[in-house]
């Protein structure tokens, strides 16, 4: 098999924030590569700067040092070309479901009729047909996050940046949406970087898992996950699942076996 080309390469990125207690170094010389059509999960202790990485890639904040290359070309950031999804669904409360899905196409200046047709098509495909004119307030948490996912996918982003997108949902809804996500990523051939603190989720969804060390964050180790399951639920019953799970727990210094 030919190895997939490197799509995004992050090199020696540093970032410090100036707080009341002085300078806090969040990212120190962080480097990693994302392959085309990769599904990479980033796990690490809380507060280790996972969100900061996303904000740098999305162009919301500037790094102090380091560089990024996209398909070999040096870039400032991927602003306008990423699909950023956060833990909060960030639906605009004054916009209907349809209006929320249209947000990205509107900012791009896509023709209104064309955009609306596409939006309705996506909503139907994700089982939200008939909810076009509902306001976010009237929807359940899972439906809202599904709308947020459609809003992200419809823009056809180069890379999806998912920052703990399902962590505020109950377990059943999370399992369901993991399946929806995995299927959508395969249908639309997307590259995904997923930040999560859920090891179980990382193993079930990803092709690779990057473990970050505590602050300042460095890539400690990268695990390839070799499970070819049809769905995240099927992945959980794969014989290698628990092996990966325990290996990652060990990397994060979580005790999983009884000490004798």
């Amino acid at each position, binding site marked *: 098999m030919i190895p997939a080309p490197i799509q995004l390469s992050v090199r020696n990125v540093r970032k410090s924030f100036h707080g009341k207690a002085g300078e806090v170094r969040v990212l120190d010389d962080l480097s990693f590569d994302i392959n085309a059509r990769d599904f990479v999960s980033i796990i690490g202790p809380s507060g280790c700067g996972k969100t900061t990485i996303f*904000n740098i890639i*999305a*162009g*919301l904040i500037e790094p102090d040092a380091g560089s990024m290359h996209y398909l070999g070309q040096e870039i400032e950031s991927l*602003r*306008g*070309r*990423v699909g*950023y999804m*956060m833990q*909060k669904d*960030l639906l*605009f*409360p*004054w*916009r209907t479901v349809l209006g929320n899905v249209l*947000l*990205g196409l*509107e*900012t*791009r200046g896509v023709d209104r009729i064309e955009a609306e047709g596409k939006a309705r098509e996506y909503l139907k495909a994700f089982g939200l047909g008939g909810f076009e004119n509902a*306001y*976010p*307030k*009237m929807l359940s948490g899972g439906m809202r996050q599904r709308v947020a996912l459609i809003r992200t996918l419809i*823009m056809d982003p180069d890379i999806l*940046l998912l920052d703990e997108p399902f962590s505020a949902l109950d377990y059943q809804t999370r399992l369901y949406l993991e399946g929806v996500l995995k299927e959508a990523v395969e249908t639309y051939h997307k590259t995904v970087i997923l930040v999560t603190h859920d090891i179980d989720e990382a193993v079930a969804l990803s092709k690779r898992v990057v473990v970050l060390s505590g602050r300042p964050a460095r890539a400690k180790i990268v695990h390839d996950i070799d499970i070819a399951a049809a769905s995240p639920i099927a992945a959980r019953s794969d014989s290698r699942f628990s092996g990966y799970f325990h290996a990652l727990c060990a990397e994060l210094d979580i005790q999983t076996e009884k000490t004798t």
Partner: protein
Amino acid sequence: MTLSLPGADRLPKRKARAPKRPALDTAAGRSLLQALAVIAFFALWETGVRAGWISAFLVGSPLGIFAVAWKMITGGELLADTWFTLFEAILGFVIGTIIGSLLGLALWYSVFVARLVEPFIVAINSVPKIALAPIVVLWFGTGLISKVALSVSLTAIVALIAAYQAAKDADVDLQSLLISMGASKHQVFFKAVVPSTLPAIIATFRINIGFGLVGAVVGEFISSQRGLGHLIYTASSLYDLDTVWAGLFTLMIMGFALYYVIDLIERTSLPWKQASTTHQVQV
């Protein structure tokens, strides 16, 4: 054998589920009680005047007020004065609210400018604008414009502060999301900032419609040939208390009506706010 847990006797006993509401606690019942209170108030007033407990010369009397009001209504002057004052108040309210809201929102564009002008806004706000009334009359004359100008000076600053504060408080995450989508500053402003300030701006309508009336009436007090403020001022200088009250009650009805119009605007302009139901905790 029954188990008895320590302290169980201290727990509240189960009560009837639905607390009994008073029999008159319905829309019609409340209206009836309110009407009765108004009638009782005027009846007591009239009786007091007739019995000589209170001076009709200093406080007027309900029947006197009614007679004066009826004469002014049939003569047409009350309606003319009402329209004049209402027109001034609404014009002042609309112009002031629009100017203030636009300026307040515009401050979002530049943190530098906003910080620069913030003390000046506070300074202007701390001046009792009513104190400007004599100058406003000097500058804009005794006609319509001076009253509108006074209303604008009262309402604009309220709208400005509310709009600026709401723009500052607009959800940063929504703005970040738009930026990550490649939105320009204008797009962030119009798609995220402006809509999220609308509830706060509409909330100022309620306060500002009152200030609009204050500006109109005070302007008429200072110098005017028309309007309810002029009517009240001239009548009170003649100790014609019945006419003063007739003017005041007309203002009250006007304020009341405007309040409901604003209420209607508030409820219909933000459909996305209406999706939830309100719950009240029973204490």
